[in-house]
C-alpha cells in the first residue's frame, strides 16, 4: 500500500498546486528570515570589529607616548593623562570584552537584541556601572524579529495545519472516504501513511530551504547544523502527529481547522505566556527600585565612614590625582577609594545575589514546565544553538565581571606600590575570551521530550478504539 499511497499522494499535491505553494512559501520565508538574521549578525560583528580597531589605535597611541616619556620627550598632555600612570592606562586603555556570534547565530535573535555584545571594563568602573543592555528601540523589542526562529516556531505549524487539517475530512466530504473504507485496509494505518508522506515532503523541502538559507548567509554546515535539522524535523513531526490525532476524530474540515488553530493558539501563544506569568508569580524577582534604594543607603553610610579629612572633590574626580601630589596622600587616597568600592560591593552582595538567585529559580521553573509547549522547547533549543539564550548572556555577564576583577587585580598592585606602567606591561595585560559553545545544552533533552510527545500522540491515536473506528469516522 505504501508505494501506491506515495505515488498517489505526490500526484495529488503536485496537481492541486499545494506542493508549489508550500515550496514558494517556505523558500521565501526562510530566505527572508535568514537575510534578517544575517544582517543582525553582521551589525554585531561590525560593532565588535570597530571597537577592536579603536582599542588597537588607542594602544598604539599609548605605546608611542610611553616611548616618548621613556626618552624624556614632551607629550603635551596633562599629567593625569600620562599613560605611565597605571590608573590612566587602566581606565583609558580597556580591553574589548566581546561576545562573538556563533555559526548559527543568524537563526534566532533570542535575547541578542536586548544586550550588548561588547563592553570595556575599566579600572575604576564597578559591576553596577557596566551597562549590559543595548541602545535599541523598545518598540523593536516589543514587536520582535522576523528571524528563522519565528518562521519555524510560529509559521511552520500554520503551514502544516493548512496542509493537513482536512486530509480525512475532505475525503469524507467529497465522498471518496467510503470507497477507501470499503477497501481491505485499516483506516488509521492508511491515514498515517498519508500524513507520513506529507511529513517527509515538508521535511525535505524545509531542509533544502534551511541549507540554502545557511549557505547564502555564510554559515557553515557542520555538526551543529545536524542538530538543527534534527530539532526542526522533530518539531515538524510533532505538528503532523497532532494533525493525525485531530483528523482521526472524524470531524468536519471546518471543525478540524478550528481545533487545530485553537491548539496552535494554546501551544504557541497562551501556554508560553502562562508559564512565564507563573514564573513571575512564584519566583518574583525583587524590585530593582528597592535594590537602588539599598545601594544608595549603603553608599551613604560608607561615605560617612570615610576619613574626615578626605578630599570630597578629588574622590569624585579621581583622574585629577596627579603624580605630583603627595605620594602618601595618593597612595592612601587610592586605597580608600578601592576599599570603599569593595565595601559597597560587599554590602550589596547579599541583595544582588538574592536577585540573581530569583532569576535562576525562575529560569529553572520555566525549564521544568517547558515540556507543556513544544513551541517553548523549540524556541529554547534554537536560542541555544544560536548562542542567544538568556543562559548565554548571563554567563557572558558573569565572565565580564570576573574579567573586570582580573583587570583590577592586574593594575592595583602597581597603583599601591606606586610603580609606573611600562611598555612591556602592555603585552602582559589580561585578555578576555568568551566561547558560547561550552555551555550545558538543553537541546538534547528538549529533542527527547519532543520525540516522546510525538510518538505518544501517534501511538495513542493508533491504539484508540479500533473497532468503533469506521463508525465514528463515517458519521
Amino acid at each position: 500500500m505504501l508505494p501506491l499511497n506515495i505515488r498517489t499522494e505526490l500526484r495529488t499535491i503536485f496537481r492541486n498546486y499545494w506542493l508549489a505553494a508550500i515550496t514558494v512559501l517556505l523558500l521565501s520565508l526562510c530566505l527572508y528570515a535568514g537575510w534578517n538574521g544575517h544582517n543582525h549578525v553582521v551589525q554585531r560583528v561590525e560593532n565588535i570589529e570597530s571597537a577592536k580597531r579603536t582599542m588597537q589605535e588607542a594602544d598604539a597611541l599609548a605605546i608611542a607616548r610611553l616611548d616618548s616619556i621613556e626618552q624624556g620627550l614632551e607629550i603635551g598632555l596633562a599629567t593625569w593623562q600620562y599613560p605611565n600612570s597605571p590608573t590612566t592606562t587602566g581606565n583609558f586603555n580597556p580591553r574589548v570584552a566581546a561576545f562573538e556570534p556563533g555559526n548559527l547565530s543568524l537563526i534566532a535573535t533570542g535575547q541578542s537584541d536586548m544586550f550588548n555584545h561588547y563592553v570595556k571594563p575599566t579600572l575604576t568602573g564597578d559591576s553596577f556601572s557596566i551597562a549590559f543592555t543595548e541602545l535599541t528601540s523598545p518598540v523593536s523589542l516589543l514587536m520582535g524579529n522576523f528571524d528563522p526562529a519565528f518562521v519555524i516556531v510560529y509559521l511552520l505549524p500554520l503551514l502544516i495545519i493548512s496542509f493537513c487539517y482536512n486530509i480525512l475530512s475532505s475525503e469524507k466530504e467529497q465522498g471518496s472516504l467510503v470507497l477507501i473504507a470499503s477497501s481491505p485496509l485499516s483506516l488509521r494505518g492508511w491515514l498515517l501513511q498519508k500524513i507520513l508522506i506529507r511529513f517527509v515532503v515538508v521535511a525535505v523541502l524545509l531542509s533544502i530551504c534551511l541549507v540554502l538559507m545557511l549557505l547564502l548567509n555564510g554559515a557553515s554546515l557542520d555538526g551543529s547544523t545536524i542538530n538543527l535539522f534534527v530539532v526542526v524535523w522533530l518539531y515538524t513531526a510533532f505538528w503532523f502527529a497532532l494533525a493525525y490525532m485531530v483528523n482521526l476524530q472524524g470531524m468536519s474540515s471546518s471543525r478540524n481547522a478550528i481545533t487545530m488553530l485553537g491548539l496552535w493558539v494554546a501551544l504557541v501563544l497562551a501556554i508560553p505566556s502562562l508559564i512565564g506569568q507563573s514564573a513571575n508569580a512564584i519566583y518574583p524577582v525583587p524590585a530593582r527600585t528597592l535594590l537602588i534604594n539599598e545601594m544608595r543607603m549603603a553608599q551613604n553610610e560608607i561615605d560617612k565612614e570615610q576619613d574626615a579629612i578626605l578630599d570630597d572633590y578629588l574622590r569624585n574626580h579621581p583622574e585629577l590625582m596627579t603624580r605630583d601630589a603627595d605620594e602618601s596622600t595618593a597612595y592612601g587616597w587610592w586605597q580608600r577609594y578601592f576599599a570603599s568600592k569593595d565595601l559597597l560591593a560587599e554590602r550589596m552582595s547579599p541583595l544582588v545575589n538574592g536577585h540573581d538567585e530569583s532569576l535562576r529559580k525562575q529560569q529553572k521553573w520555566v525549564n521544568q514546565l517547558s515540556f507543556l509547549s513544544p513551541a517553548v522547547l523549540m524556541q529554547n533549543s534554537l536560542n541555544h544553538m544560536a548562542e542567544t539564550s538568556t543562559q548565554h548572556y548571563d554567563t557572558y555577564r558573569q565572565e565580564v565581571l570576573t574579567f573586570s576583577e582580573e583587570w583590577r587585580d592586574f593594575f592595583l598592585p602597581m597603583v599601591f606600590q606606586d610603580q609606573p606602567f611600562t611598555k612591556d606591561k602592555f603585552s602582559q595585560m589580561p585578555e578576555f575570551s568568551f566561547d558560547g559553545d561550552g555551555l550545558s545544552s538543553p537541546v538534547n533533552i528538549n529533542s527527547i521530550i519532543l520525540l516522546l510527545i510525538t510518538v505518544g500522540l501517534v501511538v495513542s491515536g493508533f491504539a484508540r478504539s479500533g473497532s468503533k473506528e469506521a463508525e465514528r469516522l463515517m458519521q
Partner: protein
Amino acid sequence: MLHAENLTKEYDGNRALDALNLSVGAGDIYCLLGANGAGKSTTINLFLNFIKPTAGLVVIDQMDVNKEPLKTKEVIAYIPENLNLYGELTGLENLEYFVGLSGKKYSRDHLSDYLNEAGLQANAHRQRVKGYSKGMRQKVGIAIALAKRAKALLLDEPTSGLDPKASNEFSELLVKLSDQGVATLMATHDLFRAKETGTDIGIMKAGVLVEQLSADDINHSDLEKLYLAHMN
C-alpha cells in the same frame, strides 16, 4: 453470497433495523426499496462493516463480516450515492489507486480495458475526474468492481441524478456483472429500475422488511401500488 440473519441495529433506543433477514445469491440483483430513513443505507453500511450490528449476523461469502472485516472487504465492491473520486487524478489513476488498495496490481492497459468494459469512452481515461459527469464517475465505480473481481456489489442509490440514457447503460452493466456471477444488493428509490434490472425486490418500512418478492412475479404498475400501500 450476501446474507443477513436477524440483523438488528439500534441507535439510542431507536430501532433503525429490526431483525432483518435477507439473502442475495451469486448472480442475483436484489433491490431494496423504501422511504428515506427506512433502513436501506443502514443495511448497506452493516454489510460494509461501517457500523456494528446490535444483534444478528452479517455474512459475505460465508465469512462473518464482524469477525473478518478485512477479508470480506476483499471480495466486495461498493458504489455510494455520491461517488466523488480524486478530482486531480485521471480516471485511470483513480482506478489504479482503489484497485491497488485492495492488493491487486494491473498494467495500465489492463486497467484501460476494465474502463472500456465499464463503458467509459477511451478518450476520457486520461482526463482528470473533476471534469467527469456523474454517469462517467459511476462507470469508474463499476470498473473498480470489475477489476477487483468482486463477488458482491453494494450500491446505494446508484441511479439518482442520472439521465435516462446513463441510467439505462448502468442497468446493462449490472446485468452483465450479474451474468458473471456477482451478487448485487442495491438500495434505491427507482421503482422502474428495480423491476427492470432486479431479480428480487424487498420493501422496507421503519427498519422492517415488510415485503419480499421476485421481480418476475409483479408488473410495474402493481409494484408501484404495492409500494405505496406499504408506505401509508
